[in-house]
C-alpha cells in the first residue's frame, strides 16, 4: 500500500519553497524504491509552518514543518512515512494548537483536500449545500441566508440575504452573480487561500446564489496578482462542468448556471463593487453613482448579486447545516465566523477562522505570538489600507463589526497588520494618502486631488513648517474627503491618517533640535 504525502501548492507555501520540497520527496522516494502518492493540497493557513508536509498514517495526518528541500532526506531517514520523530515534527496536524483552537466553518476544507478533486470535495461535505438548495425555491434559499445572519465579508458587512432578496424580487430577463475576488487590501489573503485550497466551495456558493435569485451567469473577478488562484479556479471549473454541477442543467435539476473567471489589471479601486462592474464591462474602473443599486441595475444594466469570495464560500455550509447552526456562533449582529488574517510583523502569521467576539488581543498574542522581530507591538492596522491604526490600548476590542466601528475602527475584510516599535506613524499616514492618490479612479475631486495635497501637508507637518496650521489644514482636508467622496477609497482614507495622528501624535512632531538645526 502506498503512503499519501501532502505538500501544499498554496502561493505562500510555494514562495517558501514547496515546489522544491515536493520534487525532492518524489525523487527521494524513487531513490529508495518507496511507493508514495504526493497530493498537492492547499494551505491550512499556518504560514509560519509552511511548507507544512503531512503524512497520512492510519487515521491521523502527521505534520512536519517548515520543511526545506534539504530536510527531505533526513525526513526519510527518520521514518516520517510512518510518522517517525524528527526535529521538524509537529505531531498530528489537527492537534497543532494554532489550528485546533480555531473554528473552521467556511475554511474547513482548506489544506485538507486535494483542491482539484471533485471526489475529495464531495467526500468532505462538498455539494451538500447545493443538494439542500435544489430542494428549495429561491425565496426559501434567500430566507435561509437571511436567517443565518451572514453579512458581506468583503468589508462593508451588508446583510447578504437582503441583497439577494432585492435581486430575487427584481424581474429581468437576465440576472448575474458576480464574485468580488479583487482582494487588494494589504494584510489579507483569505480569499486567495480559499480559492487555491477549496475553489469548488466558492463555485458551489455562487451556484446556490444563482438558483436563489434566478441568475444563470456568473463571473469571478479575480485580481491578476493571483496567478495560482487563477489556475486553481480554472481547474475546479472544468471539474465541476465535467461532472454536471455547472451548465445547462445543474446537478440534473434542469436549471442552468455557469460562470467564468475574469482577470483584473492591478487597479485597487476595482474592489469597489461598482468599479468592478465597470471593469467587467470592459471600461475604466470608475465608481458609479448609487442608486441605482447593483442589485437592481448592475452588470450590463441587469440585476446583479455582488459578493466577496468568503461570503459566497460561507453559503454552502449555511444551506447544508441550516441557518441556525451558523447563526449560533458570534456576538451581537456579527454572526458566524470570520477568517482573520494575521500579517506583517508577526511571529505566527496566517489564517485564523474564529467566531465573532474573540478579543483582538487573543489573536495577536495567543495565535500570533507577538511580533516577528521580538520587539513590542506598537500599532496594528485592521481592515486593510483604509482601516484605522490602533495602539495597544484598544487590543481588548472584540472581533465584532459594531464594536470596531464604535472604537473608530473598521473590521473590513479581517486583515490585521502588525507593526513593532520601529514604525514611523507619520510615514504610515503619508503612505495612506500616497496610496489613495495612486489608486483614485479620479471621479471625485476630493479623492483625486485631495490625496496629493494630503501628502504635501504631511510633509510640511513633519518638516516642522507651521505645524498648528498644517494640522488644522489636514483635519479640514480629511473632513472634505470623508464627506465629498462617492466610495470608500476617498471616504475612508482619513481613517488611517487621523487615527495615526490621534494615537501617535509624537511621530508627527519634528524634534525641536532638528527644527533649530534647519535640517
Amino acid at each position, binding site marked *: 500500500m502506498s503512503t499519501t504525502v501532502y505538500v501544499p501548492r498554496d*502561493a*505562500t507555501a*510555494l*514562495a*517558501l519553497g514547496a515546489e522544491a520540497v515536493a520534487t525532492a520527496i518524489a525523487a527521494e522516494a524513487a531513490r529508495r524504491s518507496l511507493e508514495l502518492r504526493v497530493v498537492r493540497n492547499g494551505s491550512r493557513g499556518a*504560514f*509560519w509552518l*509552511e511548507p507544512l508536509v503531512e503524512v497520512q498514517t492510519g487515521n491521523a495526518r502527521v505534520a512536519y514543518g517548515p520543511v526545506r528541500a534539504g530536510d527531505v532526506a533526513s525526513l526519510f531517514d527518520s521514518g516520517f512515512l510512518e510518522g517517525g520523530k524528527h526535529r521538524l515534527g509537529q505531531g498530528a496536524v489537527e492537534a497543532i494548537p494554532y489550528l485546533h483552537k480555531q473554528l473552521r466553518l467556511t475554511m474547513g476544507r482548506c489544506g485538507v483536500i486535494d483542491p482539484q478533486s471533485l471526489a475529495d470535495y464531495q467526500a468532505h461535505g462538498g455539494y451538500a449545500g447545493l443538494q439542500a438548495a435544489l430542494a428549495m425555491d429561491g425565496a426559501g434559499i434567500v430566507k435561509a441566508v437571511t436567517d443565518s445572519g451572514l453579512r458581506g465579508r468583503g468589508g462593508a458587512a451588508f446583510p447578504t440575504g437582503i441583497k439577494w432578496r432585492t435581486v430575487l424580487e427584481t424581474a429581468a430577463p437576465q440576472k448575474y452573480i458576480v464574485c468580488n475576488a479583487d*482582494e*487588494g*487590501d*494589504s*494584510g*489579507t*489573503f483569505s*480569499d*486567495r487561500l480559499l480559492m487555491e485550497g477549496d475553489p469548488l466551495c466558492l463555485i458551489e456558493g455562487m451556484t446556490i446564489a444563482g438558483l436563489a435569485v434566478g441568475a444563470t451567469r456568473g463571473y469571478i473577478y479575480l485580481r*491578476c*496578482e*493571483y*496567478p*495560482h488562484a487563477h489556475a486553481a479556479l480554472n481547474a475546479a471549473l472544468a471539474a465541476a462542468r465535467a461532472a454536471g454541477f455547472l451548465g445547462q442543467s445543474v446537478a440534473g435539476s434542469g436549471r442552468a448556471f455557469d460562470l467564468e473567471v*475574469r*482577470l*483584473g*489589471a*492591478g*487597479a*485597487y479601486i476595482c474592489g469597489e463593487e461598482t468599479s468592478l462592474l465597470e*471593469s*467587467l*464591462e*470592459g*471600461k*475604466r*474602473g470608475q465608481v458609479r453613482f448609487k442608486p441605482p443599486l447593483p442589485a437592481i441595475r448592475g452588470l*450590463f444594466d441587469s440585476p446583479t448579486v455582488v459578493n466577496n469570495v468568503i461570503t459566497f464560500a460561507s453559503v454552502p455550509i449555511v444551506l447544508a447545516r441550516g441557518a441556525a447552526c451558523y447563526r449560533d456562533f458570534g456576538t451581537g449582529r456579527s454572526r458566524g465566523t470570520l477568517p482573520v*488574517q*494575521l*500579517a*506583517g*510583523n*508577526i511571529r505566527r*502569521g*496566517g489564517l485564523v477562522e474564529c467566531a465573532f467576539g474573540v478579543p483582538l488581543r487573543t489573536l495577536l498574542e495567543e495565535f500570533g505570538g507577538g511580533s*516577528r522581530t521580538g520587539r513590542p507591538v506598537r500599532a496594528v*492596522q485592521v481592515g486593510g*489600507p483604509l482601516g484605522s491604526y490602533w495602539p495597544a490600548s484598544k487590543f481588548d476590542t472584540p472581533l465584532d463589526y459594531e464594536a470596531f466601528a464604535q472604537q473608530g475602527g473598521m473590521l473590513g475584510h479581517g*486583515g490585521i*497588520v*502588525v*507593526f*513593532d516599535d520601529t*514604525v514611523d506613524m507619520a510615514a*504610515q499616514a503619508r*503612505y495612506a494618502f500616497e*496610496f489613495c492618490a*495612486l*489608486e483614485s*479612479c479620479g471621479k471625485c475631486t476630493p479623492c483625486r486631488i485631495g490625496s496629493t495635497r494630503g501628502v504635501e501637508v504631511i510633509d510640511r507637518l513633519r518638516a516642522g513648517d507651521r505645524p498648528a496650521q498644517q494640522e488644522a489644514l489636514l483635519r479640514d482636508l480629511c473632513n472634505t474627503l470623508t464627506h465629498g467622496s462617492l466610495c470608500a477609497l476617498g471616504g475612508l482614507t482619513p481613517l488611517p491618517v487621523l487615527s495615526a495622528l490621534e494615537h501617535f501624535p509624537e511621530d508627527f512632531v519634528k524634534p525641536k533640535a532638528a527644527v533649530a538645526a534647519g535640517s
Partner: protein
Amino acid sequence: MSARRPVTVPLRVEPGSDLPPPERSAVLEAVQACGNLPGPLLPVLHAIQDRLGWVPPRAVPLIAFELNLSRAEVHGVLSFYHYFRESKPGRHVVYLCRAEACQAVGAGALEAHAKRRLGVDFHGTTADGRYTLEPVYCLGNCACGPSVLIDKELHAGVTPARFDELVAE
C-alpha cells in the same frame, strides 16, 4: 508641362496596416479568442500583453477597430490599469510589494536596495534590458513578507541579500 500622373489617395489608412507583423497577429489572435465575450476589452488586452509582454500604443487603432470601440475608449482603459504596459519591459519583470504588511517587515529598505542594485527607479528597465522594476500593492503573501514576484514566481521573506541572489540567477 508634363502630364499629371494620377495619384491614389486612400480614404483612410487601414487600421493596423503599419504594425509589425508579430504585433498585428497578437492583436488579431486576441480578438479572435476573446472578442466575442461580453465586455471583451480587458480579456483582449490581457491576451495581447501575455503574448508580447506589453500593449504597444500603436496597436490601439487596430484594437479599437476590431472591437468597434473608439480609440479614446481603448486608450482610456489601457492607461487606467497599472498592470497594462505601454512600453516594452525587460526580459523579466520584478514586482516589489510596497503595501503595509510588507512595510512592517522591511519593504522600505528592500525597495531602496533594489533600486540601487538594479540602478533604476520604479518602472525603469536595467541598461542590459534584463530587468524591469515595478511596484505592486499586495501579492497576498502578507504573513511572510517582504514579497517579490519575478515574472510569475512568488518569493517570500526577501531580504536585500536574497534579492541579490534572485536577480543573479
